[in-house]
Every structure is written in C-alpha cells, then in structure tokens.
C-alpha cells in the first residue's frame, strides 16, 4: 500500500485551475441573478489529471474482497463473481426502464419472477418479495407483516417481540421502528436460547420472536423447532433473521422448522457486492399465513405472461419499482451458476472453512462456546495481560487482513468474530491462521507493537473516542 497520506481534494486546489475548456458561448449571455450565486462554497479547483490521480490513489488504499481476505463475521464477505457483473452489464438489463410498462418489460419481470421462485425453493417459503434494500429493511418489513397479521385478527394487544441477547442490534431497532416493545431472552450455558426464560415470556401479548439461526455465536440453534412451537402455541409468529443463511443453503429450508417470515441478504449469501459496494437486497420470504402481507408488488405469471401485482393485504411498498434490479440480476446469475448441488456445497464449504480455522486458532484464542461451529465462530482477543481485542484487530491490518467483527455479539467479552466464507482456499486460511498465531505470540513478547498498531498504513492508530465524539466532517481550510 502507498503509505503517503492522501491530501484532500481541497488541499490540492489551485486558484483558477480547471478540468474542462468550454466552447465559446454561442447564445447571448444571461447573468445569473445575484441572489442565486453562492461564494462561500470554496469548491476545489483542479485539473483532470490531478483528479484522476487523487481518486486512483484513494482506490488503491481501499480494502476490498478483490484485494485481501476479509473475514468479517456475520457479514459473509464472500467473493463476488465477475460473471454476475457481466450479466448485469448486458444492454438489455442496463437499458431497461420500469416506466415503459409490464408489456414491454417481460424479460425483466420474468427475471424477478424466476428469482422469487428460486428463493422460495431455497427457503421453503410460500411467497417472496424482493423489495427491501437491506437486511434491516427486510426485518422492518417482516415486523410490519407480523403486526398487520395480529391486527387483522383483532389482536392489537400483541405488542411484545422476544429477542435473544445474542441477536443483531438491528432486530430490536426494527421492532422499535414498527412500534413494538422488545423483551430480551437470555442465552443458556451452551449459547442457545434459554428455554425456561422463553417459556416465562410467552403470554398473550407476544407478537413473536426474532431468531437468528445459526446464532451470532456461529452456533446452530438446536431447539429451533421447540422454540417455534412454544411461540406458536402462545399465538405468536417466528421471524427468521437470515444474515447467517450462508451456513444453511441447500441443507435446511427455514420454513420447514417453523419460521413464518424471514429475510435473506442477497448481498451476503447470494454474492452481490456490499460493504460500500452495494446496494443490497434484503428479500423477505413468508409462510402461507403471512404471504398476503408481503410488501408489493411481486412478479406474477399467468399463461406465460408476466406482470407485477400487489398481494391482497400487503403492508405496501418498501422500495420504488422492482427494488434494486441490477442486484437481482447478479443474485439470479449466481444461483443459476451454482445450481441445487452448488447451493449445498456452498454451505458445506462455508462450515468446513470456519471449523478448520477454529481448530487451528482455538489453542491461541479462547472460544467461549467451543462446540462445533457453523459458518463462523467467536473467539476472544484478550490473549495476554493488557491486550484487548481492539489491539489484535489493529495489528491484523499490518498483516494485510481486514479485521473481523469485534465486540459483537455483546454476550462474549472481547469478542472476535471470524467468518471465512466458502470462497477462500486452504492456502489463504492457513496464511491467515499463521498470522493470527504470530500476533498472539507478539501480544506476549512485544505488546507495545500491538498497542500502537497499525504501523503499515498511511495513518496509524486513530483516536476512536474523538472520532465518535467530535468528528470533523467539513473541510476547514
């Protein structure tokens, strides 16, 4: 990496310099009214080559899945196949416009329809909406659907959503946005949902439960069917957070174990870009009881003709037109490339890779819940006196790895959450494990090296408190 810090475009500015030469004006000049002119903006004045170099250098400092291993837990930073992009770049897709109407958009709607069908098969759902643009957006849709379902049954008193303490923070946030209250369910000694606490919380005010399986600890929730039964018996519904679907594709259909409504992140499990490279799609799938509440419109087929139609009791639109259409093309391409057999191997390899890394690292980094993991595992970074997970994470940057998710889930102190995904080779996993073991040794032999890391970046250790408390977001030249 180029270690010279990149100046801001403002700092490269030179008065009067321009990037384009406009042709002579061939119409009478009309002055801009003074009231519309702003002089305080101080926009940078740059030539084209300076601009090109500035942004190229910035892009070279960027950390991406195309350059380095990126084991960011719960985010599934898998390789995004270039074939996806090639498919989405075809002129027919690029030039499509939703306002020309269903009749002229048969190809695009057919693709939406086929993707819906594929995802229905993968999840065991009765129907699927591709509208939501992110995982949390899908959660919000699902919680609205659950609320609408209870209201339609005259059960306005069902306002309580049960959420395990290992859940993604977006779960309680989605409930709050939808006007529900949340009740935290503790984990048991094995990292699963505490069944006694769940039983105690199940009453006639329960709207449902939001469950992530595998959980954010990377563990399969063995009691999933009993949990669903308990909540159903209390009159509630089961929401599945599909962020960790990468462990299950082709192996387990969530609807088969009692999930009523669920989102998948196409930008995680189905290999479309995310982490700055999105946009995403947090599609929502529903079991029969909730299908008519899905956000619409959905693609439907009749006698070989495709059209968009909104379900009878739909919660409404979550996104304009067909959602993030170019992402849908990519996800569909990926699913067709892998096929049914590939979907299964995807999950198997993701789980195998995570367990391989776990076994190599658990002697050096304690794993709080040590049973066999699924697609990720949560270790702890306090490997030596005075060393915290943050220090380990910063040092990993020096070795060329994107740090894993840290300090999440909240129930593991000094958490370090590693998700290698299925797209990494054994060589990459071994190189990463070697580096992690070396860092654990450094933590004991030369802790200062970790406290002051990263060293091989244009800017070293940042003051995170100042960054959170007093960020400077505007140029102050």
């Amino acid at each position, binding site marked *: 990496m180029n270690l010279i810090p990149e100046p801001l475009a403002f700092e490269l500015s030179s008065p009067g310099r321009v990037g384009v030469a406009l042709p002579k004006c061939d119409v009478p000049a009309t002055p801009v009214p003074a009231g519309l002119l702003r002089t305080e903006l101080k926009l940078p004045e740059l030539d084209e080559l300076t601009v090109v170099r500035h942004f190229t250098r910035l892009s070279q400092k960027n950390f991406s899945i195309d350059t380095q291993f990126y084991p960011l837990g719960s985010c599934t930073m898998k390789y995004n196949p270039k074939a996806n992009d090639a498919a989405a770049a075809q002129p027919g897709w690029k030039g499509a416009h939703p306002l020309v109407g269903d009749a002229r958009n048969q190809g695009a709607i057919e693709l939406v329809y086929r993707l819906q069908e594929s995802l229905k098969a993968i999840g065991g759902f009765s129907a699927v909406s591709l509208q939501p643009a992110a995982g949390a957006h899908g959660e919000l849709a699902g919680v609205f659907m659950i609320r609408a379902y209870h209201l339609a049954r005259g059960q306005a008193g069902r306002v309580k959503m049960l959420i395990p303490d290992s859940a993604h923070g977006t779960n309680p946030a989605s409930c709050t946005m939808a006007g529900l209250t949340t009740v935290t369910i503790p984990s048991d000694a094995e990292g699963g949902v505490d069944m006694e606490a769940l039983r105690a919380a199940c009453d006639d005010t329960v709207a449902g439960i939001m469950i992530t399986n595998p959980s954010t600890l990377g563990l399969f929730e063995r009691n999933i069917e009993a949990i669903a039964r308990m909540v159903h018996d209390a009159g509630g519904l089961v929401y599945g957070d599909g962020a960790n679907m990468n462990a299950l594709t082709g192996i387990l259909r969530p609807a088969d174990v009692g999930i009523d409504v669920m989102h998948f992140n196409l930008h995680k499990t189905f290999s479309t870009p995310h982490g700055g490279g999105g946009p995403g799609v947090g599609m929502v799938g529903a079991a029969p009881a909730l299908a008519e509440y899905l956000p619409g419109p959905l693609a439907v087929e009749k006698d070989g003709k495709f059209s968009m139609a909104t379900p009878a009791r739909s919660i409404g639109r979550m996104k304009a037109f067909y959602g993030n259409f170019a992402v849908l093309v990519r996800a569909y391409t990926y699913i067709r490339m892998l096929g049914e057999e590939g979907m299964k191997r995807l999950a198997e390899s993701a789980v195998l890779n995570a367990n391989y890394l776990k076994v190599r690292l658990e002697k050096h980094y304690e794993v709080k819940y040590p049973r066999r993991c699924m697609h990720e595992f949560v270790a702890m970074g306090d490997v030596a006196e005075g060393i915290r997970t943050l220090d380990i994470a910063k040092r990993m940057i020096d070795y060329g790895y994107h740090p894993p998710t*840290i*300090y999440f889930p909240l129930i593991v102190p000094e958490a370090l959450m590693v998700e290698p995904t299925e797209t990494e080779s054994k060589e990459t996993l071994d190189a990463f494990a070697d580096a992690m073991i070396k860092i654990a040794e450094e933590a004991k032999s030369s802790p200062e090296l970790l406290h002051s890391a990263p060293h091989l970046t244009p800017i070293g250790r940042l003051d995170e*408190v100042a960054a*959170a*408390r007093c960020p400077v977001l505007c140029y102050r030249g």
Partner: protein
Amino acid sequence: MSSIDKNARYRSSHEWVRKDGARIVAGISDHAQGALGDIVFVELPEVGKTLKQGEAFGVVESVKAASDVYMPMSGKVVAVNEALAGDPALVNKEPYAGGWFIAFEPTAPAEWEGLLTPEAYETEAGKE
C-alpha cells in the same frame, strides 16, 4: 482488577445505587465501564420521570457498543448528571463519583434490601 464502592448496592446488570439522604444516586460499576471501554455518549431520562425497577432509564454508548441502563430500584428522577453531556469519559474515570447518572426518590424503598451487596456483586462480576 476493578474497584467497588463498599457503600453501594448493585444489580447483576452492573448498576450501583447509594443512599444520599432521602435520595438515591445511581450509576454503573467500575467493572461495567471497563467492559464497555471508552464511553462516548450517555443518554439520561427527563427529571420528573417515574420508572419501575428493571426499566431502562438511559443508554450508555462506548466505542464498542450501546447498552441500556436499568433502574436498580423504582423511583422518580429528581436530578441527572448534566456534566456527562460534555464529558462522558467521567464514567470511565470516576464511575462511583463524578460519573454518576441520576438521582431519584425511591417509591419502593424496600427494594434496597433485595439488591446485591458489594461482596455478592464482586463475586458475580468476577464470574464473567
């Protein structure tokens, strides 16, 4: 090793309370601030609000996470620590003194007896 205030009582969710005349002062323990790391923001309730034991009364946000803070006892909030708005790091520096969160008038004073003694809390926090 985290410190403990011998005059306070505790909850397993890491809040402390201390008697201050008729009022009760509350904050989070040294163990809690250490686990949270550098605190960047504390959200406190409005004065006059009445809350039940176990209800969330505020939020504490560190560079690592945001967590709810729960009422150790039922009561009516009579004062909040305004200094935390400008200097939330007080919670890290002096969790039992300058880093207090709220003062309240207890509505169920008997709840005090059900809270953890310093020794019991130390044992509980030590298990984590």
